[in-house]
């Protein structure tokens, strides 16, 4: 069987998640490789979420939010964008090609764009192949998630 990449998509509730719903309502067909996680705003996304996804077996990560100027919370998407720039530089140090991570602005009316982006990502990840070594390297990082779970985690 050929390699089927696993993509984790962090989508903001107001634009990208709605666009994904629209793709569904419009019955657009796109690869099933993406697993969508809803956040209220891309501004909520911590870089560790992206690393966690790679560590947990994802081959690619998509962060998708509102277009600049279209954020439901005014500017959360700008904040997400700025964090992305840093993350893009960080990923290769874990042995993760920065192409495996993608940030997209997808308006709630852009169901087609969402489907297209997923298709493009799948195509690209198939060329890059499975992400194996990186998971090990991230896991080896001392207490990255141990700290997160015991430290910043809460509510249990």
């Amino acid at each position, binding site marked *: 069987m050929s390699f089927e990449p*696993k993509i*984790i998509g962090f989508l903001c*509730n*107001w*634009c990208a*998640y*709605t666009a*994904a*719903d629209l*793709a*569904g*309502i419009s*019955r*657009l*067909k*796109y690869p*099933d490789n993406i*697993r*969508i*996680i*809803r*956040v*209220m*705003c891309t*501004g*909520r*996304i*911590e870089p*560790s*979420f992206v690393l*966690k*996804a790679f560590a*947990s*077996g*994802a081959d690619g990560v998509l962060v998708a939010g509102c277009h600049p*100027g*279209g954020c*439901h*919370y*005014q*500017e*959360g998407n700008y*904040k997400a964008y700025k*964090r992305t720039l840093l993350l893009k530089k960080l990923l290769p140090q874990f042995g993760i090609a920065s192409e495996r991570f993608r940030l997209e602005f997808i*308006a*709630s*009316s*852009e169901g087609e764009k969402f*489907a297209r982006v997923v298709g493009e990502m799948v195509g690209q990840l198939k060329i890059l192949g499975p992400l194996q070594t990186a998971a090990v390297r991230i896991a080896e990082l001392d207490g990255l*998630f141990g700290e*997160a*779970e015991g*430290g*910043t*985690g*809460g*509510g*249990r």
Partner: protein
Amino acid sequence: MPEIRTGVYVCHCGSNISEKVDVAAVVDFAAKLTGVAVSRDYKYMCSEPGQELIKKDIRELGINRVVVASCSPRMHEPTFRRALNAAGLNGYLLEMANIREQVSWVTLNPAQATQKAKALISGAVRKVRSNQPLEEKYVEVNPNVLVVGGGIAGLEAALKIANSGNQVYLVEREPSVGGNMAKFDKTFPTLDCAACILTPKMVEAGQHEKVKMFTYSEVAGVDGYIGNFKVKVRKKARYVDLNKCTACGDCEKVCPVNTADAFNEGLSERKAIYKLFAQAVPNVYQIEKKDKPPCRVACPAGVNVQGYLALTREGKYREALALVRENMPIPAVCGRVCFHPCEAECRRGELDEPVSINAVKRFLADYENKQGQPPVVNPQAKSGKRVAVIGSGPAGLAAAFYLNKAGHEVVVFEAKPEAGGLLRYGIPEYRLPKDVLKRELDYITDSGVKLRTNTRLGRDFSINDLKKQGYDAVFLAVGAGKEQNLGLEGEELSGVMSGLSFLEAANSRQKLDVNSDKVLVIGGGNAAVDAARTAKRLGAGSVEVIYRRTRNEMPAFAEEVAEAEREGISFRFLTAPLKITGKAGRVTSVECQQMELGEPDESGRRQPIPVPNAKFTLAADYVLVAIGQRVDPLFGGSKYVDIETNSNGTVKTNQYYLTNVLGVFAGGDMVTGPARMVDAVAAGKEASRMIDAYLRGETMPEREQPAKGQKEPLTGKKYYEVLRHRSPHLAVDKRGWRDEVVAALSEQDVMAEARRCLDCGVCSECFECVPACHAQAINHQAQDEYVDLEVGSIILATGFENLDPAVGVQWGYRRFPNVLTGLQFERLSNASGPTGGKLLTEDGREPEAVAILHCIGSRDKNYQEYCSRVCCMASLKFAHLVKEKIKAKVYEFYIDMRAYGKQYEEFYNRVQDEGVNFIRGKGAEVLEKSGRLVVRAEDTLLGAFREVPVDMVILNSALIPRRDAGAVAHLFSIQRSRDGFFLESHPKLEPIKTATDGIYLAGTCQGPKDIPDTVAQAAGAAAEALEKITAGRVKVSPITAYNIAERCSGCKTCIAMCPYKAISFDEERKVAIYNEALCKGCGTCVASCPSGAARMRNYETDQMLEIIEGVCAV
């Protein structure tokens, strides 16, 4: 902590989910996940029995966490939360897995769909374990409602709410409510007159005690959230007091400015002061002002060019000249010698050639002279202050005139025997006759200014003397009248003189013996050309001007150079003098150097550089040196005057024209160095304002800032198609020493020039309307005002606009006059329209055949893909109106006929019976053939191309979002659908709500619709708002951020992140304080917190990591 017992419920959604997802396999999978106590499926989880399943398990099996795998949480999350609550479990202990929109509907392969569904459920099950019960939050609802847009939708919504007794603020951008519907003639299919059904609503809204209208206003800012919005409204300056205007129309009668009437879709013209339409609500006038026209901006003196052109056009010469004199006290001089920077900027030049502005000014001044006495200047009440003006050039004259007008006693001191400065002694008489100058001087002295000639500062008196004589202020304006030297050998020889002294001698009528001699003029400025032409007139044998650069770099006016050449003067370019040689103390020749142009210098002109070994000698009996002027250096160093100067001799002043000596001001060339006459007048006028303030002990006024240029595209107005009139010139052989070369334009030509003005600034600020208004309602200085409103709900009813059919050249719009838009036809057919309801072509004929083209830009992938819904019916209405009014043949070019509403099909049948020709095929092209319009189309029923000759074409173009819909969406934080219209919350079930709570949509801003649908949606929007008002409070999400103060390091990172100012800083404890009432739950602060103190309810970091692990695990 009690054991986690999760119930998983997988929905079939009929077959929507189960046709792709193996529900049984998913249920089995879920049952084995950690913490899952029960896993079930049901046909419709959202149905009553489905919900009952969950409730029963909560009650009987002790389920304390719920995962529903079904449709999007955006659809049914509230439904299932309610179910949990009903069974006594907190609704926030729920997670949903979206296995319909994001799985079954988008995946082809059932096995993969099932796998994906399992992954999403796995994530949800892991996350829900640590979900916490959250308390619902409520906020109070302010019962006031904001309605944006005063068309039929906004009016309807506003009246519904107002009639319930709640306060409505109605904001309308245009000067009147009514919107697009107010332009319509009849409405389909009942053929009600649009005005008859709309205007009662307009009036009712205008008079309703619960409706506060803000017309000619826009929403400038929106803050807050449902129940508690804070809105800033910008009330655009109307320049007419709404409360005083009686709509009598007296102002309109005197307004000289015509502009395209946008309400009549450009089919007619209106005045700059206007009422939008006859039934306007509020029934008042306003003035349309655009940015200042570029002519007025370009004029250093700020002369209101558009204003005097407009008045001239009306034959109000006296008023026009008075307007000129407000900024230019010497219009007859200016009309002759100004080199009119206004004309270079005139926007008429974008079409053909600029208006001959200066010639109009000259005509006005000369006309007054011919008529006799100029008007008497009535200075303001005497201030009792005395001002001495030193120098009677343009700067001094302007300052003196305006200071006298302001009520001060002004004495002008002039060193020379006669007043006028360079106007008299520098400019030759053939350009500026002495009697013209005398007229101007007389006007100024008649107004009260006293003149003392032959009195030189530094020789006959000092500034201290003036102070002793009781002058309260001094204005220095002695100019820059000293000619620069060449600094070459031989300059002292007899026969070498400065151009300026030569001109002065000529202008003083001194005898100059240049008969038959060879005169060489050195320089490239106006003084050089003036000297050359004067020498020629005095009988010089030959006159040659030598200039070190080329014609392109010459500072002299091109027109003057051309005239000089016509008079026989030759120009030798790229020639620089090296040495003047002579015999017996008298000049004989000039040694010259050939030059070439090198790199541009700081002035942007290319520098002349010598060509090696290229020297030659020119014979000369006279050499006139005119290479530029400067301020007399003796002046600065004079022991009589203790004024600070710069190294080049110009006087130092501050922004108020004040020198280092208190009470002594300076302006004009002596401050700026040599400049234009109009610059000097501008300086004199500006300085007079400063001196006036100084004398009155008032704060010094700010110096006038250059207005910003006008960049709006020229649109709409049909312009007067006549080419520029040139002033006649005296024949070369008739040009005597004192004969004015350039003659005035005839009155007829001046009138034509005034009509050529495009009125690009719209209101010309001629101020004729001010005295015409007996109610004293007009204030040209009015400013925009801002009003702050607090409302609980907002209804957007901002409407549509029509696609400009000119985007497709094939349809001929704006190329052929009788190709109209649908709205233009509405105006044409409307009894209150430009033709009083007569259907006429542009040249006033009744059309014999009319074509109506459907789907212009609609259902067209090149423009708008969607159907605009109303055009078929509107087209049928147009056909009916044509048939009703005239005997023309009517052709409808349609793709499909869409008559879907109540009584619509019946109307279609009726119009067919009226004899309208229906051609099934889109109008592809509109051509002009032998004087008629021809519509080309493929008749898809006949299978043939057709060309139909007609006299009028109506293009029914697409309804599109307003051009600023994007900005408005951003302002209100709502989204737009792909077509650009505002996006509703759900296309079927929530067509009125937006994604932003408390903001609702009504009418065509949400998508194309007809009037009945618009009215229905408006009533729906009113109901949405009233629902919140009646409830008095609304639920807001409890998913908010909070922080653990013990962990907070006080770094304040989160404070900058929060767009809602929900985080403050406790200076005592040095920790951030989170106000959850203000938090909207974006979580940006949480992601930014470096110490893990910031948290988000049910979106905790470890929960997010759980869900990531969960979805990745499958």
